[in-house]
């Protein structure tokens, strides 16, 4: 190993989360448990997307919810399970927040792109960029002072969490979702910003409240069972 490679290797192993990367996987095929888990988590996202939209009844309209509580779920699932989480977010939106509430496959398939982009970007940014800069790609630093003996940067983690996920990606998601529905003639132009704000704040509130609960309560359990993906696929 050359000196340069050693430096890179040392830098990568500085954090307990260095094994969570943007590689394809750990070089192992998908096990039967993972195979089932990936399918079941997609089903879970479908159900939660459906409930997110219908629990508010008539207030939710065209698949847009004023409290879209599935948003933090698929972000966390993506950080755990990579491409399968992203797939879950997309399919969940197509079926749960689309077909099951009466939107047709064409509209659902198009506007679900708004739920596909945020987890994709989150996975790339956190695993590829921020993990090497001391930010946990599993978001444990939002709730824990230490992860495996390494002190976390909680304030930075929270600021990045809100800016990246809550503001930037959420705004892109709202723009895409409401824009596509407006394009298909489901939302009138005069009501565009009203629905945009509903989408944005509905996702933001859900994300801030639910994500820490989800991370604190479950990440350790999932990690202990060896079910977190090392890369995109496994």
């Amino acid at each position: 190993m050359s000196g340069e490679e050693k430096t890179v290797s040392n830098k990568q192993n500085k954090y307990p989360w260095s094994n969570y990367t943007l590689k394809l996987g750990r070089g192992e095929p998908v096990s039967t448990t993972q195979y089932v888990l990936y399918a079941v988590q997609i089903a879970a996202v479908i159900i939660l997307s459906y409930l997110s939209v219908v629990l508010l009844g008539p207030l939710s309209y065209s698949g847009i919810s004023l409290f879209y509580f599935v948003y933090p779920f698929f972000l966390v699932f993506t950080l755990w399970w990579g491409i399968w989480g992203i797939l879950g977010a997309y399919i969940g939106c197509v079926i749960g927040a689309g077909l099951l509430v009466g939107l047709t496959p064409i509209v659902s398939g198009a506007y679900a792109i708004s739920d596909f982009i945020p987890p994709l970007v989150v996975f790339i940014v956190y695993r590829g960029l921020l993990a090497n800069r001391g930010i946990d790609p599993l978001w444990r630093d939002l709730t824990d002072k230490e992860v495996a003996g390494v002190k976390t940067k909680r304030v930075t983690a929270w600021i990045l969490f809100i800016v990246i996920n809550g503001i930037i990606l959420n705004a892109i998601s709202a723009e895409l979702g409401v824009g596509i529905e407006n394009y298909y003639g489901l939302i009138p132009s005069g009501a565009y910003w009203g629905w945009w704000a509903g989408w944005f704040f509905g996702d933001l509130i859900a994300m801030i409240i639910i994500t820490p609960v989800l991370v604190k309560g479950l990440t350790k359990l999932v990690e202990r069972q060896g079910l977190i993906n090392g890369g995109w696929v496994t």
Partner: protein
Amino acid sequence: MARDDVEARTSKKYVRTFIFSMKTGTPIEKLHVITKIFMIAAMSVLALYMFDIPVLKGGPDIIGLIFLLTIVFVLLIISGTTKYLANSYLLLALPVPISEFIWWLFFNEGLPGAREVFYLWPGFFPIGISTAVLVCVFGVVYYRTRSIIIAIIPAVLLWWLTAMAGTFDFSPLTTWFRLPIGATYSFTLSSWSVTVALSKALGFAVMIYTSFLFLLTTRDAEIAGAMRQLGLSFKKAFFIALIFRSLNTLLIDYENIRIAQTARAAGVNRKNVFSKIIDLAYVSIPLVATMIRRSTEMGVALYARGFEASKKVTSFKETKRITYMDVTVIAILSVFLIYEVVLGHNINNLFVR
């Protein structure tokens, strides 16, 4: 053995679907899942196209949309699911087209045409069709929900929608008697506003009930079977089947956790919205933990049954053949699509000149 299983299945009167159980032997049950998917895709393309025709090109195809909605309801009746639909989704889904109508009525800017007067309050209580709407909607919703508040909201909303158009209020055909109350409050809208808003509401109703038709009459195994017919490998088809099979189980898990939370007095004293949201957040932990546990158990069970090792697997028994009925349905819908979307004809123009 496989033949016995198929006979056992086909001899059943009802089979389980995504969100209900379906009567066997109906023409809709016999349709191939690919035909059903084509049907909802075609119907949605037609609805999206019909309600989006610009005013300058003749405006939305209202009669075409009414025709589509009639087809959907006829198909629901044929499929034998109307009783379930009437008991559950019919009223639940109704607020969506109504809100669609209201949004498009007030937020659709820049429509051409003369301005027409609409009333917030016409200065009298009209006794006529609007009163009949008020009484009927209140009666039906109250009968279903036994709640005066829940019944009064849609009743008043629909009453107001039928009473706000000046032409309705002042026509002796629709208003038979007037009880003068208070002053008149009015506003003006483009004459096209109601047509466009109505077309959006009808289009949405077509899309909603077509989706329900699919969900009420399709089995998860049928989709997996169709995937195999389309040449997908067993593992991929089984993966899709697993997703659909897990939906119902997870929904039951969610309900059980909610009931357990209620039994532990969750949300008894805390009334504000944020407390309720936090309660909802706490459902997530047992729900995901259950999901992981179940996945692990199922994974082990599949492994023990040689899922990874098996080369030759039993195919899905629910796989159907494409019949002449499927071909007919696809052909009729294709002709309709070509007539309306490709050639740009409008059913409205056949009746309204």
